[in-house]
């Protein structure tokens, strides 16, 4: 099905806004992950640039519906990286304090993740099941803050942090097992 592409070609303005309604969150958090510490205005500019890029290039796109999400994610990533290069400002890291505390507590036991294949790591994360997999993806892939993940999953922030901590421990154990 090429429902999105058809809409983009037939009624581009409304289609691009509908795309924004459907996948705005994905693009927003993908951009924010790259531009962590940059002003909100930069992030939103980059997000709108991503959708405007799709609007301008609609005639060159030929995507099945199930490919549009990955395409938007990839475009957002590239726009964000370009923006970072263009602006060339030094970001001030604004890591979530609760997760920072958790990260430092774990640092002594850091695993040599780079020695494992990325595919194994991703498989292990996905195998954690919900909501733990979602929490780790939201935090470490998308770059969401603890409060935001809590709101997304309708949980208390403390619950998110403790689940993340347990999930990381479980992930470590799984990966150690795979390594040995």
């Amino acid at each position: 099905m090429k429902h999105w592409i058809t809409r983009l070609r037939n009624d581009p303005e409304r289609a691009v806004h509908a795309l924004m309604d459907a996948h705005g969150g994905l693009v927003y958090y993908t951009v924010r992950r790259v531009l962590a510490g940059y002003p909100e205005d930069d992030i939103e500019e980059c997000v709108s640039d991503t959708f405007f890029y799709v609007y301008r290039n609609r005639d060159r796109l030929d995507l099945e519906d199930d490919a549009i999400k990955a395409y938007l994610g990839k475009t957002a990533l590239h726009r964000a990286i370009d923006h970072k290069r263009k602006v060339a400002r030094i970001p001030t890291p604004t890591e979530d304090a609760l997760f920072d505390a958790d990260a430092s507590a774990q640092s002594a036991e850091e695993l040599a993740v780079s020695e494992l294949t990325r595919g194994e790591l991703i498989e292990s994360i996905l195998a954690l099941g919900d909501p733990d997999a979602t929490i780790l993806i939201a935090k470490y892939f998308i770059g969401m803050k603890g409060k935001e993940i809590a709101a997304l999953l309708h949980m208390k922030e403390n619950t998110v942090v403790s689940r993340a901590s347990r999930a990381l421990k479980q992930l470590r154990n799984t990966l150690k097992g795979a390594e040995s």
Partner: protein
Amino acid sequence: MTNDLSKVLSNATDAEASALMDRFDPEAHLDEDTKARLHARISQSIRETKASAKRKLRFPWKAVLGIAAACAAVYLTLGFTVPGVADTLYRVFHPDYRTEAYFSTPPEQRQDPVKDLEAAVGDFHAQDVESKVELLGEYTMLTRYDAEYNDMANSTPTLRETYGFSPYRQADYVYLRDMRASVRELYYDGERLFVTAFVATEHPEWLLADDEATPPNLELAVFDFQLTVNGEAFPIQWNVSSGGGSGITVHDGEKGLWVSTEIDLTEPLPDGRCELLMLYYVYDCDVDDMGAIGNVGRLIHRISFVSDAGNRRADACTEATFCGSAPMTFTFVDPVTLEEKTIENRTVSFDGLKMRFTAQYLASGLKITAQLVAVPQDWTEAEKEAFLYGFFEPLTFEAQSGEDRIVVKNYEISRKDGNWTFELPVFPSEYETVGAITLIPRIRYLSEFDVYVQDSETEGHYEHVVLKPDTGAIPRAEHFGQSTVLETPLSEVRIEIPLPKGE
């Protein structure tokens, strides 16, 4: 581990990213304010692109007018006195006529006012209801974005300082309070609403976003709307474009500038009294001519009008079966990576393709909608795809009337759901003289083009490619330079569009 985790995941391949994203659905969490700001930014980018396209259109239009004037002079010198010559010249030498281009040209700059259209504007009884200026920090709650704007107003001083500009002070922009908007024209064709407003101000030149000018360097742009019909809210979604302020002039003894706006309606307006609220935002280009932090004030313009006249229009319908062959361009792109795949020209038979043609007889011209009814039986999805959505939009038309002919340009055609809609500059008062219009379909294809070739040692260069029909596929480059598009008329197909008599 957490740092490593972020680093490793950030290098995920497309497939891996897709797998992670499938699990994660952040849409629900994007709050309404953020969404509203993002929609507004996207709309602004689109509006600027359209305005830029309109500005680009003006130059060749003027050039064509020059040629028209020269040719008219030749006709006069040679003493031609054939009846209807003026009409003929109008149609032949104004190929770029479109309603939106007409209304986006300041009234006193229109070389050939269309008397049918000028008269029709009066049918809507447009009147001013309110014109009021608000400076940033004092916005009243009027539209769905007001909460967002007020937030912007509150955070603007901080934002400006963050970006290294002077803090916002309302006192610096009090001169904007002399702006006053009045409606000059309103036209509704059943699908679109055109509004031309005059904004009176002592210093219109300050509002034209001219980087070369002495400050203040501001820009005026219509950016938000609200419409009610018979007191009920009527939805307007995104399909709005405004040319912004243009054309400093003196109108009714006042200095000011023109602002033209087009609103594409998602459905026709019901008959009745309508009220349109337009918000003209003013940006300080010396602060930021693109982002919200440049916003310093707005002009609230409320007008009323009666929609009935736009819903009363005659139309006629006819059907045609195509025949003949023509080359058409096919492109094939990798659905995920969008990396170049192939492009080729194939000769395609159009025998058996059926289309329905509807003509609307409007004061703004003859509006034709061609609707695909059936494709030839031997067409595959590839042919259908290339015909409907092809990279170079293959279908266009030539309109003939006696010796006159106009080829409808690609950008003049609006394509939607297998419908092709375009306007012909034939107006009701000319129907008797013109008699009838014959349409002939034309098929466009990409014949030659330059391809940008990336070179690891230099900045790259363009290579010229000739793509002859039926010579097979070649790899398709993502970046095209100059290109040549050829058109093949399907001469055997003649679609007669009748014109009403006795207009």
